[in-house]
């Protein structure tokens, strides 16, 4: 899979490219709109990651030209504007997805994979980590033989964390997935829900499944060797 990043901030482009290369993508970087256009003319890409604020030929212009020539190329737009009307405008101009800076790389990866339709995100009806089982159809959660009652939001958080075991989910990803942006930064709402979730899922059992990655967020995995100090 070959990806093109059109981003004028070299460091940001490098950081995204490095992360994507680690996920075994082939990544090219273009520093402005014209260079991006030359890359697009020269190579066949599977995905375009496009910053909207670019020197020489704006991102929006490039987006419209891409849509005229390669209607099916998935485009993930990066921008510093997160107003709803801007999003609507760029979706109309042909963006497939939209990511607002500052974003989490994990979030970018989820979006890229979703756009390329090769997401390893668990789609199964029943999710399992160790002896914890979550049934998406009946919305029932069991640990071993014990049935656990969860509220709607607790279930939402757990399902999201279990959808990709071992991956770190940032607070803002959880917030946006289970709640919405209105709650961003104001409250420790995610931490509170994870704490309640832990009381039900982890506290009565010796094997802890929910792990805190300080400064990043939470992840679920079965190995208990790396005890994280944030867990209390």
């Amino acid at each position, binding site marked *: 899979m070959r990806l093109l990043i059109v981003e004028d901030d070299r460091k*940001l482009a490098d950081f995204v490219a490095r992360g994507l290369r680690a996920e075994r993508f082939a990544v090219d970087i273009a520093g402005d709109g014209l260079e991006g256009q030359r890359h697009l003319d020269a190579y066949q890409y599977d995905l375009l990651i496009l910053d909207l604020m670019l020197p020489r030929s704006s991102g929006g212009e490039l987006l419209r030209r891409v849509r005229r020539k390669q209607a099916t190329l998935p485009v993930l737009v990066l921008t*510093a504007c997160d107003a709803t009307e801007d999003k609507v405008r760029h979706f109309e101009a042909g963006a497939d997805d939209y990511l607002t800076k500052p974003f*989490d790389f994990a979030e970018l990866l989820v979006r890229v994979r979703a756009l390329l339709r090769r997401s390893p995100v668990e789609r199964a009806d029943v999710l399992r980590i160790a002896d914890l089982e979550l049934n998406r159809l009946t919305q029932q959660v069991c640990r071993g033989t014990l049935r656990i009652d969860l509220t709607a939001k607790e279930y939402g958080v757990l399902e999201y964390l279990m959808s990709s075991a071992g991956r770190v989910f940032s607070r*803002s990803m959880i917030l946006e997935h289970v709640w919405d942006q209105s709650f961003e*930064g104001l409250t420790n709402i995610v931490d509170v829900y994870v704490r309640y979730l832990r009381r039900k899922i982890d506290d009565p059992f010796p094997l802890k499944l929910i792990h805190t990655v*300080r400064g990043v967020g939470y992840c679920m995995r079965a190995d208990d060797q790396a005890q994280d100090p944030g867990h209390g």
Partner: protein
Amino acid sequence: MNHRSLAFRLSVWYALLLSATFALVGAGMLYGLEQYLRANVGDSLRRRSVQVEQILQHSPAATTESAIGEAIETRVAPEFNNRFVRVTRAPATLVFRSGEPADRSFVAAAVPPQPEAVFSKAQVRPVATAYGRVMISSTPIDTASGKYLIELGTALEPIEALQYRLLSLLGLMLPVLVACAAAGGYLLVHSALRPVERMSHTAEQISVQDLEARLPVVPTGDALQRLAISLNHMLTRLRDSVQTSRRFLADASHELRTPLTVIKGELQELVATEVGRVEVRERIGSVLEEVARLEYLVSGLLVLSRLDAGDARRTWVDVNLGELAANTLEQMRLVAEDRGVQLQPTALSSLLVRGDSGRLKQVIVNLHDNAIKFTPRGGVVRLRTQQRDDYGILEVSDSGIGIPADALPHVFDRFYRVDAARSREDGGAGLGLSIVRSICSAHGVAIEVDSTPGRGSCFLLKFPLPALGSLPPAARPAEAPAEQIPPTGAPS
């Protein structure tokens, strides 16, 4: 009518000055008239007195008193002429006294005798009688037959009547004239000040949100035109400076986002790869927490700058405020209970307002976040939506620590904290309430804050209602929480 207004004070001064002038002129007129009339009467009395004097001078010494009287009757005819005539020989012998006048303007018999002194000097003076005042000219003469005093008089009543008539006319006209003049003056000043009123009215309408409006400039060439022009110049400078600061805020928060992404990404990668010692990762984690706060701050500033620019109107729809509040509170319930605070939505009627649903939700979240933060364990945060008169009311009250009176005007200021140490510990950036205010002013919503330190605070939002009014009761959302959460301290 405002008693301290310029127009009113000018009119009062005007009226006072006018009354004083009128009073002076009136008094002068009355006095002058009196003097003139008395002099006239005096002259006519003296002329008659000369006739009587001639009779006395030309009568032989032996002429009887009745002959003198006859001569006076014939020449002067005092009764017919309404005159009083009395001739006295010194020291006090009454020679002649006229009878009662034809018009009965005085009573001749009631005129008192003159004192001794008048024999020495001719004079004209009013004499009070029991039946009104009489003007008397007394002339002493020496004749061959001895010393006489000739007195000629006439009633003062016609002069007094004239004076009285003039006085009452003046007394009647003065207040009417002054009132008319004062009213005219008031209207004149008022109309002269009308352009100023228009200017101040327009100036009132110009808010920070809309600095494009300008004062009307009427080309009168006077001070008012110059005032309007200078105020308009000032408004232009104000707009430029507001725009500059807004653009700076927007640009700054924009520009911070890219480096923040890089910092966050690189650090998260370091933590996630799990290389290095635990302590190092702990420290990076701590830095990341600060980055998250910075991130929130930057996005808050961007929200504010966008609201300042006034682009909230574009996504307005009908929003059911009651339902929105109920749903939002549902999502915050656990956070509140985690801090031992009860959320109590009471009388949650559905209420339809126009606005941006996402932004209005932000208002509810921020108000509750604030209330929960400053309410100690065991406290209550109440929400009430209702329709009152032509307004939709959303009220959030808490039983928290309250806001001191001197801090109350500043709670909506950016970065303002009542208790800096306390709220920074809570991770607050001091932007929550200023975002509330910006969203509210974009929606034309008035905010009232009421607070008693130690008892709690109340934020009251007044939404202008769209023409539709409230939804029927059938559309009301459930008032009981759908999600049953165990009370704090006893989670199962």
